[in-house]
């Protein structure tokens, strides 16, 4: 797939000297879901705001669909939809009129059929004549998404779309995102929820202190950086590790009934066969085997800590 968003060496420095973005370079493929993870103040929202034209960059360039966001901003912005972090809506407006306004702002002629499709997709059609102030928080978030989709963008930025929403609504949002992806929309979302990125993203970007630490395919990232553990449950406790099993990779649990073997999923040989042979040779009897993989959260925390150090 070709790159639909090309960010090159993007910098944003404020007048007080604070550098919110320190030369971010990032290409986003058409039709993918990219999750940007990062702690508070990492630069996630600044990055999105700069791409969308809300914040002016200090240097660097951004292209959307091959259009420069500064020199060819009309064509570039026409392709972008933005769902902001805060629920920014006019309380006395009706749902349909605020969505219609968004479509008009992007220069698209009135098309009630298209808006009906979007509102139905977001379960908002029944509320189309309701004032925004009468809606629940979850519904308001859906209205924000409807406004961002009103002009049928090809790239959608979701800035922490599920922050502060309940589990059910979060799952609904994930379904909406999956549907949009199926329609060919490229989605870039920022989130604090690692499980969100793990559940819906194709690629993960980790940003901290204005720098993009990595961008990688989610599965590859987990395979590359994730360590796996094999827990061998023994029938009875052992006092010490048998000599053949002593190594950095093997530890004994506190209750001395489990052997914990950590191995690298990328290695050609995991060493599991030898471990089990050694266990048998040492006369240990096992009752169960269990494997576990480090989560994205552990990877993320590790990366951010590494960067801070």
């Amino acid at each position, binding site marked *: 797939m070709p790159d639909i968003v090309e960010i090159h060496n993007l910098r944003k420095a404020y007048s007080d000297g604070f550098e919110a973005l320190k030369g971010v370079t990032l290409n986003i493929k058409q039709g993918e879901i990219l999750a940007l993870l990062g702690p508070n103040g990492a630069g996630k929202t600044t990055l999105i705001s700069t791409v969308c034209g809300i914040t002016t960059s200090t240097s660097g360039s951004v292209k959307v669909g091959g259009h420069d966001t500064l020199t060819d901003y009309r064509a570039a912005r026409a392709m972008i939809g933005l769902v902001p972090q805060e629920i*920014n*809506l006019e309380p006395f407006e009706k749902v349909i009129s605020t969505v219609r306004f968004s479509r008009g702002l992007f*220069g698209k002629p009135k098309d009630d059929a298209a808006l009906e499709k979007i509102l139905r997709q977001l379960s908002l059609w029944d509320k189309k004549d309701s004032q925004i102030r009468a809606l629940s928080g979850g519904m308001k978030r859906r209205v924000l998404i409807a406004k961002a989709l009103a002009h049928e963008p090809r790239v959608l930025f979701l800035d922490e779309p599920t922050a502060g929403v309940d589990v059910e609504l979060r799952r609904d949002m994930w379904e909406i995102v999956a549907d949009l992806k199926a329609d060919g929309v490229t989605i870039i979302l920022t989130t604090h929820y690692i499980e969100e990125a793990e559940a819906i993203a194709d690629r993960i970007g980790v940003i901290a202190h204005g720098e993009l630490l990595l961008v990688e395919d989610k599965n590859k990232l987990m395979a590359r950086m994730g360590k796996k553990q094999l827990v061998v449950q023994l029938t009875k406790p052992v006092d010490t590790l048998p000599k053949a099993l002593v190594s950095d990779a093997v530890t004994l649990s506190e209750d001395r009934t489990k052997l914990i073997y950590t191995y690298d999923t990328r290695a050609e040989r995991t060493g599991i066969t030898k471990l089990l042979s050694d266990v048998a040779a040492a006369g240990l009897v096992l009752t169960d085997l269990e494997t576990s993989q480090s989560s994205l959260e552990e990877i993320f925390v590790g990366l951010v800590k590494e960067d801070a150090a």
Partner: protein
Amino acid sequence: MNWIAVTSIYKFEMARFFRTMTQSFVSPVLSTSLYFVVFGAAIGSRIQEVEGISYGAFIVPGLIMLSVITQSISNASFGIYFPKFIGTVFELLSAPISFIEIVLGYVGAAATKALFIGVIILITAFFFVDITILHPFWMVIFLLLTCVSFALFGFIIGIWAGNFEQLQLVPLLIITPLVFLGGSFYSISMLPPVWQVISHFNPVVYLISGFRWSFFGAADVPIVTSLFAIAGFTALCLAVIWWIFRTGWRIRQ
């Protein structure tokens, strides 16, 4: 030019105006009627003609200007300040529209609202006094120019304002005194010589004078001077707005 965006902003703002009908129409009509009762009937009955015009009729152009100027400013300043206040301004900044289109939408709507109110006050005035408009074409031109120029000024105030207090500050502390002291209710020639000179530094004098000339053919300052003054003010506001959007002052981070 993204005309669809311009009309979207315009219609959105006008819808807000019609949604608050009482505040939009009844309030200016009521306050104008009160002015006519107090200044026209109560005080005006004790004042002789001013420059050959009955006092009740003399104050009509000033009253219209008073409302049109304040309404242009408040509508335009609120129109752009409110999206800033509630955060929906992000939508304007991320849309494929130029600053000219944003200004056309907001200022156009604010000027239209003020024009409506000006016309309503004029119609109301016909119920209280006999008025003849000598130069209707120029009356419309002056009215339009005033609506547009002060809506531009209001737009600047809306962008500048950081809170609701600041939004009211300039209209209350500067514009209202300038309009009241700009000959709304009297002729500049009725003032002592020193104050006549000082009054010529008040830009509103030129507007009211020109507007009054379009009604009665009598003016405190030459009509051409009035036209230049309002054109200059419009140009100045446009230049400031151009600078605001070029630098992103108070709008874009």
